[in-house]
């Protein structure tokens, strides 16, 4: 069985295909959920959210296309985990995780889906390894120490690149520039 066939079977209503996806992706989804909930929730909560991701896959199968299922699962895993955290409302965001955009920014005037597309483009336009660091920190909610360990980089370098990423994102969303003029020396 390959992924395209498993998805086709899932769309046709096959629970064995669902089991196939769970076998293939439960570690991945569990890891994403765990990195977001770890420290705030119990192991049972992590299992609950992980299973909710596969319930969502089951319910949404007919809407899916077999090209980037991993990306879809990461988004659902992240979204359900963040919702779980927000339901508990345990922590307020740090100031440095808030961007203050210009009042006349184009971003503010865009429809929600266009805003999402603009964010996606801005993040994906970041140079490597800044992009991966930014995604690990803000998308997968990994800590600086975990990122430092997994990417084998100095924590202070990670922090510097995160700061540069935030500034790049702020400038792009404020002015709708492509951020091409933001180079290493300007924001290190």
């Amino acid at each position, binding site marked *: 069985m390959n992924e395209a066939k498993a998805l086709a079977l899932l769309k046709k209503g096959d629970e064995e295909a669902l089991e196939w996806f769970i076998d293939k992706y439960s570690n991945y989804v569990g*890891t994403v959920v765990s990195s977001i909930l770890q420290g705030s929730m119990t192991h049972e909560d992590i299992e609950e959210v*992980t299973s*909710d991701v596969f319930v969502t896959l089951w319910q949404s199968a007919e809407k899916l296309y*077999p*090209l980037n299922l991993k990306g879809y699962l*990461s988004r659902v895993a992240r979204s359900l985990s963040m919702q779980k955290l927000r339901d508990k409302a345990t922590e307020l965001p740090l100031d440095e995780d808030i*961007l203050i955009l210009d009042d006349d920014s184009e971003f503010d005037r865009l429809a929600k889906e266009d805003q999402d597309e603009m964010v996606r483009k801005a993040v994906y336009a970041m140079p490597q390894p800044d992009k991966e660091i930014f995604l690990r920190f803000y998308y997968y909610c990994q800590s600086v120490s975990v990122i430092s360990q997994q990417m084998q980089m100095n924590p202070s370098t990670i922090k510097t690149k995160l700061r540069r990423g935030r500034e790049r994102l702020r400038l792009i969303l404020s002015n709708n520039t492509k951020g091409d003029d933001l180079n290493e020396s300007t924001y290190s």
Partner: protein
Amino acid sequence: MKVHIHELMDNIEDSSVNIEEQNVVSSERIKELTKMKIQNAGYTKKRSKKGLVTIGIAVAVVAALGTTAFAVFNGGLGGLSFGKRSLAEEIEADTGVSIPEEVMATMPEQEFISLQGYPDSPEYQATAEWLAFESGYDRDCKILDEHDAEIRRTGVDPFEEYNCYLVWSQEMVDKINEITAKYDLKLHTNITDCDEKIVNEMCGEVFSDGFTGAGYMYEDGTFNLDSEFNGIYFQIGRCMRGYFDTTYLNVGNASNYEEYEYTTKSGITVTISHGKGGMGMDKWIVTANLKDSFVSLNTFPFDYDGNLKEYTKADIEALVDSIDFTRL
């Protein structure tokens, strides 16, 4: 304007980061939880390894009736039916708990149709016989669990040769071999990714410009594509004659569909059916009973962004006119 970066990331998808996967959850535990939630929410209108009690019985009845009784329905969804399945009865059978009538009323039976051909074809009969066998096999999953444990222990799937089918015991392999010998069918042996270009290269220009699809194909030319054409989202599949295939489609209730025959621009007459699918949403199904294959097409109720879609008769006729069925 203040925006929180974590919230900005809520609606983007990422698979570019190679996250170091950890064994933080048990896949068996996740299966258990997921199935429990699906059942509790009433989403299980679908095929389950443990399920298929009613469909098994219905298939046995079909087999007992032989092909003559169904010949009069040839041309419509009813004639393709493998029978109906009652989720409520399955839950009662599996758990021993009696389901109240008012709850039963919210769980209508689901009907499944063949994607291989009509009951007078060996392909249909072979699939029906397989489903009848499979529905009563290993209902407590003990054999499957042993099989999974063996794979984990040895790293080898002893039934790798049958990887185009869902089998987990020698008994199942023997049954497949018995069925394929009885109906003189060959096995799918190799599966690969597929798109509309591959189909066009293999068969000639089946699909017009603007058609996109992605899915799988077997070495014999049996394929299935999730597709889009002119804003219509659908699945199209071809099952080759002479090969054993076990897929089927949940159509809700086949007798509630309106059906008619339509001759496409390629000169092939197809059956177009319109009704509510297994999820109770608008569905169009097109079938073509061809010399070398059986072709089926079914629309999705959503586009890839999740927006609800409904189509007109003219939309579907334009879609089938864009496909050259003579090459399938």
